[in-house]
Structure formats: structure tokens, C-alpha cells
């Protein structure tokens, strides 16, 4: 049972939703798939039904406007639907979706991937303790449930996200014990020229920081959380000053807290692109391993388009415009016409991307951060593999992420390696004396998310089994 479209868009964030809308307005039959309940993506994530009324925020307003547009368009939204497999077919693409416990197949001439980013969290001793959540994860909690991660929270990490999270905790009535960031004030000053292009965001950020100062919340610049205390619940964190390379060198300082939000920048969620047959290359300035895409969203594979943070971390504003450009390119492809050149939009994209990449530059972890790990720090959470397990495997000759994965199961657990491969690449690079750019992630394998056996089995009839010719005796 498959449904046929001109274009299927995977991901309903600013990039995907705008691509879908643009293509639909151009007259294409568009389906948009997202695992969330409503369009909006990470940045404009919708509230869960729990929230009946609440003050709006810039994010909620942008998200509501987008949802309104999608609702009024001809885009067919598959919400709470997870894409688990992508295949190229003679007629274009086949996209396998898990929806309400069943597999649905979508067929389309063109496929737009807009799968966004996920967070890189640098492992540190104790980061697996319940009560430690990702910075990006914290924003999800704020946006959908308007809930707090705890009573008294340390917020730690790189780039602007750390200040956004701290300020949201304060807005929702929580207490921020401290903000801890590897960035220095000087790094922020250096990013200033790129930031003045977006005075609205600059003012908002300045307000967050000023509010923290006024409230007496300590901000530890050029510091990182070096250890988390607590067995089954966070009871506090130890922080340390960092060198220029972000290696810890200062005296440990203890901060009491019952929760920690921790994150070190975003990285493109590129598994879908890999499944669709795209090669990845390493771009530190874009957050890590990315597929090759141009500003119009075109990739090296026919009928395959890509936009937003999944193409490299450039931020929401750039993603929105990239989505529009990609929607135009993909719909031109479907109609068999040459895409028009939209110079104004292209320029707007370049401007937005410059701002986004300045933020990415602040967020990308430096090498020294690795040295926060101890020998017994868990790196692969699913299989409880420590740094010393991984280093031993590397020293025994495993020279690729693939070999480490096979030998130890690092990346074979339920998360599929989403939270350990970055660290493992760095450990391999370090051992070889090479660069992370020489250590690509392992081959992506379906399903993109764990999928229930019952869903795959569907309403199987034993008699329908295609019985093959018996194997030679």
C-alpha cells in the first residue's frame, strides 16, 4: 500500500516545512514527514497538549505562523511518523514510514531531506547520571512541556545555546546555579561583526546575559564541567578552568545542583543522507560530517535535495531560506524546467548563513575538551563502553570506526552510535596522530530509528511467502 507524491520532504523544521510549502505553492503534490506531533522542528517545536495557555516567545510565534501556513496549504503532513528506510527506485524514491504502529510507503519523484541536527555532548565523568540532559534536549522540554529539568540547574556548554537555556530556566521559574562555558568573552567579542547583521538576536542575547548578571548567577567563562556527582541523581558538579585549547588546567571548583544541562554544539543528522547514497565530508566549520549540497539544495544524486542544518549547521534563519530555495529547485526538477535564479533569496541566505556559521564556530568543541574524559568514563552509553575499552581496541589495531564498532559493539546499541561516534573518531584520530577528517563515521544502516517487529511484520500471511528454488544440495 503506497501513496504517490511529486515530492516527499523528511523533516518539518524551518527548512523542511518551507521547502514543502514552496513546492506546494508551485503546484507540486507534497508530503512532509516528521516524528514530532506537529511541524516546527527543534527550534520551533510545538507545545504538547498539556499546555492550555502560556505567554508567547519568538520561537513559539514563528512556529505557530509556520504551522498555520502548513495547515492552510496542500502539503499533506505525516506527523508522529518516523522514516526508517529510504530507497531509490526507477520512478524516484521510496520512503518507508512508521506511522501508528504500521509501515506506510511513500513514493515520490523527488526527495528533500531536512533532518536537521543533533547535539554533540562531550563525555565527562558522570555524564550518564540521571539528571544530566543535553542542552538541546532541555530546549525540547521547555518548548513542548514548559517544564524544568530540576530545581537548581547548572547550564554548561558552548555557543549561544547555553545562554538561551539558562534564560529559559529563569523564564519558567527555575533557578540557574551557574552558567559554565568553554567560550571566552573575547571569543564572543570576535564574533561581534557577524552578529551585528542580526541586531534582533544580538539584543536578545545581550538581555539574557545582562539578566543573569543582575540575578547574580555566576557565569564561568572558559570553564567546563569536569565531573558530575551523584549515583542515581545529580547532586552537584565540579568545574575547571580551561586552556586556549579547552583542556582543563584550573583548580576544581564544586557547584551544588540537582540537574545539569550539557552540550557542545550541533552536528548534522546525516544518516538519512547516507542511506540515500550521499557521501559525507568533514567540515569543522559546519559542525562535522556533512553531505555536499549547494545553496539551491541540489546534491550529487538525481532527484535528491537537502536543506537546513542537515547540510551543515547554519542556524534556523538560514535553514528557513535554504528550505525555500530548495523547494523551488525541487519543484522545478519535478516539472522538468530549469530552476529560476532567485538572487534576493540567495543573498539573504548567504547573510543568514554567515551569522549561523559564526555561532557554529563558537560552538564547535576544541581538542582539549577530550581530555576531560578519564579512563573509566563511559563513551558508548548503550553498551557501557569506557574510553579505556575503546583506546585498547584502537591500540590492538582497530583503525576505523567500523572496526571499533564490530569489535566492541560501539554503535550497535539502540541509539545506533548517534552519541558515541564523534568521540570515537576523535580517539582514533588522536591515536593515529591524524585528524578527525580522516576518520569517517561507519556505514549508515536502516532502520533510522528502532522499529517494532510487529510493524515490520504487518498482516503477514504465511501462504504469501515467496518460496524460492531450494538451495543446491
Amino acid at each position, binding site marked *: 500500500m503506497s501513496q504517490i507524491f511529486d515530492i516527499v520532504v523528511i523533516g518539518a523544521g524551518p527548512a523542511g516545512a518551507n521547502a514543502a510549502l514552496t513546492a506546494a505553492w508551485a503546484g507540486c503534490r507534497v508530503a512532509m514527514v516528521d516524528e514530532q506531533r506537529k511541524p516546527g522542528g527543534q527550534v520551533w517545536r510545538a507545545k504538547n497538549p498539556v499546555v492550555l495557555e502560556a505567554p508567547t516567545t519568538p520561537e513559539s510565534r514563528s512556529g505557530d505562523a509556520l504551522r498555520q501556513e502548513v495547515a492552510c496549504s496542500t502539503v499533506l503532513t505525516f506527523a508522529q511518523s518516523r522514516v526508517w*528506510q529510504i530507497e531509490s527506485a526507477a520512478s524516484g524514491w521510496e520512503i518507508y514510514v512508521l506511522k501508528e504502529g504500521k509501515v506506510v510507503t511513500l513514493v515520490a519523484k523527488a526527495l528533500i531531506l531536512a533532518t536537521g541536527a543533533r547535539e554533540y555532548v562531550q563525555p565527562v565523568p558522570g555524564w550518564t547520571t540521571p539528571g544530566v540532559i543535553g542542552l538541546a534536549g532541555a530546549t525540547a522540554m521547555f518548548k513542548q512541556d514548559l517544564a524544568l529539568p530540576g530545581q537548581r540547574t547548572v547550564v554548561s556548554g558552548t555557543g549561544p545555546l547555553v545562554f538561551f537555556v539558562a534564560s529559559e530556566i529563569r523564564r519558567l521559574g527555575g533557578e540557574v546555579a551557574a552558567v559554565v562555558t568553554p567560550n571566552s568573552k573575547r571569543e564572543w567579542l570576535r564574533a561581534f561583526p557577524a552578529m551585528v547583521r542580526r541586531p534582533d538576536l544580538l539584543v536578545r542575547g545581550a538581555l539574557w546575559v545582562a539578566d543573569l548578571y543582575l540575578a547574580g548567577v555566576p557565569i564561568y567563562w572558559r570553564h567546563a564541567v569536569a565531573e558530575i556527582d551523584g549515583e542515581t541523581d545529580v547532586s552537584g558538579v565540579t568545574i575547571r578552568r580551561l586552556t586556549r585549547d579547552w583542556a582543563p588546567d584550573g583548580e576544581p571548583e564544586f557547584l551544588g545542583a540537582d540537574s545539569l544541562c550539557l552540550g557542545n554544539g550541533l552536528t548534522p543528522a546525516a544518516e538519512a543522507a547516507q542511506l540515500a547514497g550521499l557521501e559525507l565530508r568533514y567540515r569543522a566549520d559546519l559542525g562535522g560530517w556533512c553531505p555536499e549540497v549547494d545553496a539551491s539544495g541540489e546534491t550529487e544524486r538525481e532527484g535528491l535535495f537537502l536543506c537546513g542544518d542537515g547540510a551543515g549547521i547554519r542556524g534556523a534563519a538560514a535553514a528557513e531560506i535554504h528550505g525555500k530555495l530548495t523547494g523551488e529547485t525541487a519543484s522545478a526538477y519535478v516539472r522538468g524546467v530549469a530552476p529560476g535564479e532567485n538572487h534576493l533569496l540567495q543573498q539573504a541566505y548567504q547573510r543568514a548563513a554567515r551569522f549561523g556559521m559564526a555561532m557554529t564556530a563558537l560552538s564547535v568543541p576544541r581538542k582539549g575538551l577530550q581530555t576531560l574524559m578519564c579512563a573509566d568514563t563511559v563513551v558508548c552509553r548503550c553498551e557501557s563502553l569506557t574510553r579505556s575499552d575503546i583506546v585498547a581496541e584502537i591500540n590492538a*589495531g582497530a583503525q576505523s570506526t567500523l572496526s571499533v564498532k564490530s569489535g566492541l559493539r560501539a554503535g550497535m546499541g539502540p541509539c*545506533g552510535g548517534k552519541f558515541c561516534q564523534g568521540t570515537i573518531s576523535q580517539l582514533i584520530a588522536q591515536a593515529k596522530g591524524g585528524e578527525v577528517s580522516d576518520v569517517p563515521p561507519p*556505514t549508515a*544502516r536502516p532502520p533510522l530509528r528502532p522499529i517494532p517487529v510487529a510493524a515490520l511484520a504487518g498482516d*503477514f500471511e504465511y501462504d504469501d511467502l515467496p518460496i524460492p528454488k531450494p*538451495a543446491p544440495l
Partner: protein
Amino acid sequence: MTIVYDIAVVGGGIMGCAAALEMAAGGMRPIVLEQSDIGQGASGVNAGTLSLQIKRVKLMPYALKGHHAWARMGAAVGFKKTGGFTLAFTEREAELLTERQTLKAKAGAPIEFVSTKRLRNVEPNLAQKVVAASYCAEDGYANSSLTGQYFRGRLCDEAIEYQERCQILAIDRGASYQLTTSRGVIYAKRLLLAAGAWIKTAAALLDVHLPVDARINTVSVTERMPALISSVIGHATGLLTMKQKANGTVLVGGGWQGRGRPQEGRGQVMASSVMPNIALAQFAMPGLSKARILRSWTGFEANVPDFYPLAGALPGFDDAFVLGCVRGGYTIGPYIGQLMGDFILGREPELPLFDPGRDFDEDML
């Protein structure tokens, strides 16, 4: 000074590594050249079933020896002798089962037919719909993802050199073989092509055409589950293999086909194969319906038209050899690799090899 190795082994799978180990033990100096990582081809992605019930009749003596080789490797490769059942759910399948397993038992495999009552006693979580079953106490499994780790370790222990991420670009024959690779030029007196599904490409570098084809087998694995089965499970048609590892994950195979070609990367999973494969697994073991599949993958299994191995001198050469296309090669690999090593060392192999120069349209045995 340039080193001239006694033999360059092209391909670091089970076949290449086992042969290299045997040759080194016999006094030769081999080098193993692998295009990706050691043991990441078919040897590292297969379902790991060590079952005599799915071996070819004429390969049974090799398979038995193979089982013993795996048992000796033991825990380092995740070996477990669990016993295995092959199931029939219809009368037609039952006939097929009887006919085929009788022949295999005659060939020396300790296979017996068991009552469904006995089956249920041992495996209470299997579906009630089984009409007939065979059992082999020798059957079990090993963990194929440990192939790379294990053989890399063995090569290191024996001080056998190897190169990973080493593509063979050209082979020239002068006083010795000159292999131009992505990691430099290598000289060797002899050559063993053990390049798995890529064996055809490797032989073509010597202008030899081998009629090699590749099947693209699919395997899937669940997350950890409570104990459901203790034996290796097969299906009369061969469309299902299933085992539960010590960590609780259930591995499902059965030769369902993905797509792709060895020359174009690692092959692709097809949903249209995974879904019926998993459905059949759930049919055979209803408790699986509560599990989630974490990963499906494919691997290339090479074969020639008569589905017997290539193991011997490359046609037209006396110092170049070929080893591959072994059906059930994971099981038989460590043993046939050893035979191949003996042959190259000039010893009489314990069991006969399989001439790669034969006429593939005739049944040669």
C-alpha cells in the same frame, strides 16, 4: 631494499587470514592486503550460523572440520554450540526437510528428526504450528562481528604483516609479482586471491575471467530481549535463520536479497526483503513481536555457477592461487583456508581442493 614477500594475500577475510596463518606457520612470509578493514567483508557481516543442516552434502566433511576449528577459537569469536532445529510449517516443507536432511545425515552430519513435543520442551517459545523438525547437536553460532578483531589479533601474534585500506590497482608479473596499491608497491613471489565477492575484479587484473556472481544477503538484529530461544533455528526452505545471543539480541537471517554490486560499496538493504524476513521470524517465534529491530544490513556472498568453492591454482598460473566462493564459507572458511595454505606450501591437503579451472557446468565431484 625492497622486500619480496613469499606471498601476497589479496583479501583479509576469513579465507585470506586463515590461509596466511597456515602459510606463516609453514615458514612462509606472507603479507595480507585488505581494501577496507580486516574481516569487514562477508566474514564480518554474516549471520554467524554454524549449522550442518544448511551445508551442501558434498561439503559436509569440510563443514565438520570447520565446526571444530570454530570450537577451538571459542569465546574469542563468541562461539557457542547450542544445537539447532530446522522447522517445517507445512506438509510440503516437511517433505523437503525429510528428503534433504536424510541426505545430509548420510553425508556424516549428526542430524535426527525430532517430535514436535521434544521441540516444544526445548524451545517452548516457538510457534505451535510446527509440523516437523530436524535437530543437529553440532549446530551453533559464532559472532561474525568479532572476525576482524580476532584475525587481526592472530596476524599480530604471528607477526604477519597486513595493510588495511589498501586497494590493489594493478598487478604486473616480472621476476616476481608487482602489486600497485593505494598504499605503495608490494612485491611478492606468489599471489593468493581471497577477495570474497571482489575476487572477479582481482582476477581480472591478471586477465583471468572467473564467472563469479554475488548474492546480497540481508541480516537484521533486535535490541536485547528476555530469553526466548536457546538453539539456532532454521526453516525448511532456508528463508529463516534465527538465534539469540548471550546479550539477548536476536539475529535474523535467511538469505533475503538486498541490492547493489560489490564494485559499488557495501550494498543496500531493501525493505521489501526485510519485512517478510522479520514477519517469518515473528511467525516462528510470536514473542518476537514485542521486540524492535535496531539494524539491518547486507553482505555479498560470492558464488560460481556450480556453487562449489574456488580453491586452487588460478587457471594458467602455477604461482597464483584463488580461494573463495565457498557456500557456507563462514563455517568452512577457517578449515579450507588451512587446506589452501597447505597446498601452496607444497603439502598434500587433508581433503581435496576445488580446481578453479574446472568446467562449471558439470558436477565435478
